[in-house]
């Protein structure tokens, strides 16, 4: 690696000498660097030659350059957040100058540099809505992943509990209906293509969340959902080399399997017996497909056929009554999860060369015995500068090795099945087919068809191994004063290998082999599927090249005018190839597998009349994403008070089947900033800093699932004729396809009171989603049920308030400050192709977007309740103004406008209050979060499910049982026959809608600091010993329902972490 870099150095050196010789001989060059106390360069510092109009600002490296005739001068050096300097110099200067600026504590908070991923921008010159999460805040939480570090500390950003898993977070609400809803993640200048799990939070220096159009149009067509810019740690620069060690261990409780209120086992057993008596199970008992019946039902049949006595039946019943599968699983399959994290960081350097080395190791034992995962991260970043600081070069290499072992799968079992007997011997459980059938074949020589879950704990050989490599390179040259040319390049590669080699010691393999076994008339066996392991392999290879070429110009003229111009183009090529294959009869020791007949339809052992081919799982896929983008960005500041910004970008991509002129979308934004507190008329001591800012513009979103042309997806094997390939139409032709566009306006002010007692930002925004993709339901006679097109328009209003109170700031003993944020989102559908159906609207709280004009994207609807019928306990609705039990008519005569609309299914107000205390060496941080203004549907009994022989909700025991109960319960009576419509009605009745509003004590962090300056005997500079408790619990909720409004089935377990961070 050394050689090419030194070659480039030589080339550039020659270049510099050439240009230096063209300098004006009368003037002398003055080069200097402005650094802070830690040796970090400060960009954007204003340098003014006293008594002249001559001035400049420092660049990203904190370097400034002036050309002055010989003589004595005074330089006024100023930057918001720092104390002003006045420096006397004598020109010519022989050595590069270096000045240290002291932070001005009173204005500390206003010194923040945002990284937009393209440029670093001091806060006072930004017009956009950016939130920066600094290193301290990132390190506040303890977790393996980076994303959770943003939770409850980022105004406008919420972790979704309702909606698709592909949308874990939203920034300022959802901006699209059916396209990609994830924010764009930028790591070190480029969008990151790998899984976020590969990022070690210990390597991250800061995160900037870009929320409005100002930043979004910088990132263009993929930025409609907001942008998260992650910057990893850089070399420390001047000063001593730093070594930091951070290590912690997290203990997490076993999951609370009893959290979801399930009906009592004995109630369920009674129900099974009743169903048995009505003959409900008869059809399945006799079915040729040998379906599984529960152990109690089997026992009842055995008893009815005289195979077991009444006494034996009673004994079994007693055993069932005293068994609970959740207890069985907790005792045998679960443990406390343990997560260990180690990270070592070494950084240092001098003026011209800085370096950073990091190593991290994470090892997590999951709460299921036998399952664990680990991650190793290694990285280095080097940056060099030429002596005259005109040329700079940096290069980073990041390696990640991640592995996941899934040695155990949780068994699916009946609620009262046991995993072991009284003395702890493992027991088989019912699985797939009735044991009557399995036992009838016990003597024919099949593989053992019993499933003993305990024996399989940790026995599966199933692993994921992932290697992720990221290499980046940046070279920059200052062509002339303030005029820079930069190139950036990133290569990324990810190799994923997901393998599971499941031998015949595991039930699932034996089951599949048995299923295809044929018994010949002479009693011999024919096994189309050979005995041996089933080896599944997924191999994924991805890589991307990203290249950016950028010119920037930064000039301060006449002292009061400052111009920043940035323009460039970008290329990106991302390719992924995935191969999935399966080998049967695999022997890992010999490394051989067996050829298989995938073509013949073999009779299945359970029912020879139903034939099937041996599962053929091989798949191959390849994806290519390419982007070509042009962008430009301009900022102008006058007197450090007035700022105008504008940006524009055009993205083109290889969207399939789109005409060349439709591939791209032009996006733009403009912004204004005004530091009001600099104006004479405003100046006051009470509010020393006050700034107004505003942006307006467009960002975009794409949906790679749609195409203007007819597209079809090929599949290799037709079920009917396995040797024949076929294609399914995935996209009917749509010649009117366009990109989605999101228009955003942000108006905000930032302020700071005297002595920083109170500071904050108030951002108000308005978003309008245009040409959004909507899947409209069309008449089925068209041949499709849904059709995608640019049919929708949405609107979102909201605000993000961010306040910081410094209650007590006696810098010696006791500190208390509070960070508070409050975000509000009010979204609605403005336009949509067609009306949704009643049933789909009622189901929309499941996280499926069912658009109704005027209402939020995720809404909760219900049918008006008429209470329970006093005579029968049946749920009643309202039909023509009267209580009614004609569910079919109630549902069919309810019009969309008659539905009860409760409100949003996602919080419309949310935020967090974080109190930080410091007393001496102790510090304590307590974060409470809140979510308000939303609704959810309480879980309750589904009789249809129960009467089909499945255990259900514990509301069963609170049901209506006799007249009069309707006064004390809303849970309907047990129906006499299956009535799915009644359940549909009851599911949707208004009684079941609850307010989701709640306050939650999310976490507490306690730390103790040791410092060499206070304790000189310490072998290190600084150490922090910390503990972190997460998922503590609810403080208040609006609903009486037992469950946490945000967690209706499972609740995240509490955890506690202990750790230490040492700076050597």
């Amino acid at each position, binding site marked *: 690696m050394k050689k090419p870099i030194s070659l480039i150095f030589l080339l550039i050196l020659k270049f510099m000498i050439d240009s230096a010789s063209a300098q004006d001989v009368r003037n002398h060059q003055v080069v200097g660097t402005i650094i802070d106390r830690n040796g970090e360069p400060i960009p954007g510092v204003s340098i003014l030659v006293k008594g002249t109009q001559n001035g400049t600002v420092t660049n990203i490296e904190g370097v400034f350059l002036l050309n002055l005739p010989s003589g004595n001068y005074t330089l006024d050096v100023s930057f918001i957040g720092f104390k002003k300097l006045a420096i006397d110099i004598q020109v010519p200067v022989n050595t590069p100058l270096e000045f240290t600026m002291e932070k001005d504590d009173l204005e500390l908070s206003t010194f923040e540099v945002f990284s937009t991923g393209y440029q670093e921008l001091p806060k006072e010159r930004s017009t956009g809505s950016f939130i920066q999460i600094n290193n301290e805040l990132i390190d506040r939480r303890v977790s393996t992943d980076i994303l959770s570090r943003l939770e409850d500390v980022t105004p406008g950003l919420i972790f979704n509990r309702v909606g698709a898993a592909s949308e874990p977070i939203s920034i300022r609400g959802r901006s699209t209906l059916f396209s990609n809803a994830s924010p764009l993640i930028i790591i070190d200048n480029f969008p990151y293509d790998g899984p976020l799990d590969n990022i070690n939070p210990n390597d991250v220096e800061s995160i900037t969340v870009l929320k409005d159009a100002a930043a979004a149009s910088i990132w263009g067509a993929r930025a409609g959902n907001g942008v998260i810019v992650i910057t990893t740690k850089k070399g420390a620069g001047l000063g001593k080399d730093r070594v930091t060690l951070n290590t912690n261990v997290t203990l997490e409780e076993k999951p609370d399997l009893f959290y979801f209120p399930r009906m009592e086992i004995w109630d369920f057993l009674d129900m099974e017996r009743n169903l048995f008596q009505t003959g409900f199970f008869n059809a399945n008992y006799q079915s040729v497909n040998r379906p599984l019946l529960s152990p109690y039902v089997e026992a009842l049949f055995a008893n009815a056929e005289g195979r077991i006595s009444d006494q034996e039946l009673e004994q079994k019943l007693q055993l069932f009554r005293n068994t609970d599968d959740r207890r069985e699983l907790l005792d045998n399959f679960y443990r406390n999860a343990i997560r260990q994290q180690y990270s070592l960081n070494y950084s240092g350097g001098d003026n011209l060369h800085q370096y950073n080395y990091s190593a991290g190791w994470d090892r997590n034992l999951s709460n299921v015995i036998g399952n664990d995962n680990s991650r190793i991260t290694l990285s280095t970043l080097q940056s060099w500068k030429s002596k005259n600081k005109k040329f700079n070069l940096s290069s980073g290499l990041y390696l990640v090795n991640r592995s996941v072992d899934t040695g155990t799968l949780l068994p699916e079992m009946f609620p009262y099945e046991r995993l072991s007997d009284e003395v702890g011997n493992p027991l088989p459980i019912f699985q797939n087919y009735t044991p009557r059938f399995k036992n009838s074949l016990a003597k024919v020589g099949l593989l053992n068809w019993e499933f003993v879950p305990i024996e399989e704990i940790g026995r599966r050989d199933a692993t994921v191994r992932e290697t992720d490599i990221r290499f980046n390179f940046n070279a920059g040259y200052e062509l002339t004063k303030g005029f820079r040319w930069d190139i950036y390049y990133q290569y990324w590669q990810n190799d994923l290998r997901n393998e599971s080699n499941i031998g015949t010691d595991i039930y699932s393999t034996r089951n599949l082999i048995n299923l295809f076994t044929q018994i010949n008339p002479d009693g011999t066996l024919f096994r189309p599927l050979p005995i041996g392991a089933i080896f599944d392999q997924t191999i994924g290879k991805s890589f991307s090249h990203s290249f950016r070429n950028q010119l920037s110009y930064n000039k301060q003229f006449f002292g009061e005018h400052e111009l920043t111009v940035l323009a460039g183009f970008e290329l990106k090529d991302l390719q992924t190839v995935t191969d999935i294959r399966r080998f049967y009869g695999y022997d890992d020791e010999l490394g051989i597998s067996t050829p298989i007949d995938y073509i013949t*339809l073999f009779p299945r052992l359970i029912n020879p009349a*139903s*034939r099937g081919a041996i599962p053929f799982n091989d798949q191959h896929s390849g994806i290519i994403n390419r982007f070509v983008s042009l962008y430009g960005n301009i900022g102008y500041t006058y007197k450090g008070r007035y700022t105008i910004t504008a940006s524009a970008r055009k993205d083109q991509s290889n969207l399939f089947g789109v005409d060349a002129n439709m591939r791209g979308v032009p996006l733009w934004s403009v912004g204004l900033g005004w530091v009001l507190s600099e104006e004479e008329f405003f100046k006051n001591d009470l509010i020393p800093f006050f700034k107004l800012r505003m942006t307006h513009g467009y960002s975009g979103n794409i949906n790679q699932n749609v195409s203007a042309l007819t597209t079809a997806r090929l599949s290799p094997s037709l079920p*009917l004729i396995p040797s024949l390939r076929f294609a399914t*139409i995935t996209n*009917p032709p749509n010649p009117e396809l366009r990109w989605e566009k999101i228009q955003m306006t942000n108006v905000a002010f930032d302020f700071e009171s005297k002595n920083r007692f109170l500071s904050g930002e108030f951002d108000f925004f308005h978003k309008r989603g245009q040409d959004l993709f909507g899947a409209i339901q069309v008449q*089925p*006679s068209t041949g499709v049920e849904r059709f995608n097109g640019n049919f929708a328009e949405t609107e979102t209003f909201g605000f993000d308030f961010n306040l910081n109170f410094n209650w007590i700031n006696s810098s010696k003993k006791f500190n208390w400050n509070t960070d508070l944020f409050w975000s509000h989102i009010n979204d609605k559908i403005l336009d949509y192709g067609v009306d949704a159906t009643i049933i789909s609207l009622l189901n929309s709280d499941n996280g499926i977007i069912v658009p109704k004009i005027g209402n939020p994207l995720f809404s909760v609807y219900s049918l008006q309740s008429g209470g329970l019928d006093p005579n029968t306990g049946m749920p009643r609705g309202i039909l023509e103004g009267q209580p009614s039990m004609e569910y079919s008519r109630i549902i069919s005569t309810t019009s969309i406008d008659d539905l009860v609309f409760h409100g949003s299914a996602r919080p419309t107000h949310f935020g967090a209050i974080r109190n930080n205390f410091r007393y001496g060496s102790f510090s304590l941080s307590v974060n409470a979060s809140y979510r308000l203004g939303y609704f959810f549907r309480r879980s309750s009994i589904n009789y249809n499910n129960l009467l089909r022989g499945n255990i259900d909700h514990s509301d069963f025991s609170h049901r209506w049982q006799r007249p009069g109960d309707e006064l004390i319960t809303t849970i309907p009576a047990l129906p006499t026959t299956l009535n799915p419509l009644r359940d549909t009605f009851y599911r949707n009745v208004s009684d079941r809608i609850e307010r989701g509003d709640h306050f939650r004590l999310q976490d507490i962090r306690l730390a103790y600091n040791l410092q060499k300056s206070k304790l000189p005997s310490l072998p290190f500079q600084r150490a922090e010993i910390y503990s972190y408790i997460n998922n503590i619990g609810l403080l208040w909720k609006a609903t009486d329902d037992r469950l946490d409004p945000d967690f209706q089935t499972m609740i995240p377990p509490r955890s506690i972490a202990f750790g230490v961070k040492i700076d050597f």
Partner: protein
Amino acid sequence: MNKSTYFLIIAVILAACDEFLDAKPSKDIVTPNSLEFIEDILNFSTRMNIDLTLGYVASDDYITTDQALNNYQPWQKSVYLWEEEPFQLNDVVFDWNSPYNQIFTANVAESELEKLINVDDTKRRHLIGTTAFYRAYGFYNLSQLFLPHYSINGEFDNSISIPYRETPVITQPSEMVNAEEMFLRITRNLDIALENLNSSSTHKINPNLAAAHALAARVYFTAEDYEKSYQHARRVLEFSTYQLIDYNQLSPSAANPIEQFNSEVIFHSEFLAQAILYSQLVLVNPELLSLYKDGDLRKSIYFITRPNGNINFRASYTGRVNLFGGLALDEVYLTLAESAQRTGRTNEALEAINFYLSKRYTPETFVPFRPDSSLLEKIILERRKGLAFRANRWSDLRRLNRDPRFQKTLFRTYQGVQISLLPNSPIYTLPVPPLELN
């Protein structure tokens, strides 16, 4: 480096961009821009080779228990019980959606075929014929459920219309056609299929000329155009690839004695897969069972008596549990016999029916039919027995009910109460599902 060099570099890179951006985003996505890809689309048998179930649910081949009806979709249960408004507001009625999807796929294939240039014309013509065949097949099936019976003899009800489409563009409106107009469109498509299809196809899931004739025989037969159904049935017999199975050669002990793609199958097609059809509680209607005489091998081959006494149908021509509704030679012989008799060709009728029966009875019990006044009745009865648990019964009921001689009232018992379906009842035309009208 001066500015012009820099801009030159940009210009070169941008010029290369178009090619750079032409890359296909995903390997497995294709535009059907070749004959092979269009074949692949038409090969998707799960969507293309389908028959409808509701006619079977509403006819008299099987009965089931009250308990089993609980496992039916509400609308399937309503159809079984001959209710007037079987479909609720949001019911997704497979019997409506699936044939329209089949037709849509054919329409997509056809419109893509029209765009292709410089391709093998024989193959292209065959595929044009295939798309027309599927349109005819799909619309015929739809017409049998959702339009009143159409007869060329003129007695038909034109008050009901359903959508007819030949375009794949979703946003284009459909043409609404009544029973008569639908018949004309089906036969127009059949003409295109007959004109373009090759005489053979590689797989039995793909239509060929014989299949087109067999379908034409079925369509004209249903419309009581017995002359044309006779002609087309005759044409099918010219294809020697298809042979009647001699049931004497089959083994009644097999789970299903009939093989998939056997020598009688001309065009393979299956009832929409639905769990209710596979239940052991689909009991053979005792009335049907009583029609089979001793020595009739169809009885032992078609039906199986379970240990608990339930008698189920098990001899689907799919070779599996899925019911067969496609085109097979036995249907052609039965259609030929009835059409010939109705058009005064008694000798040919006898020849066809006796040849068919000789393959269905044991040699000892086989007694050939002779010309007599009840021959038509006998042929119709053999059709009833031969095509049990196939897709024809509902259409046959609708057609035969027009003739007072063959009218039949159907009966069922539900919750202890007997219900009936009278001949020519409006129930014989299902309403259009509300989701379509919504």
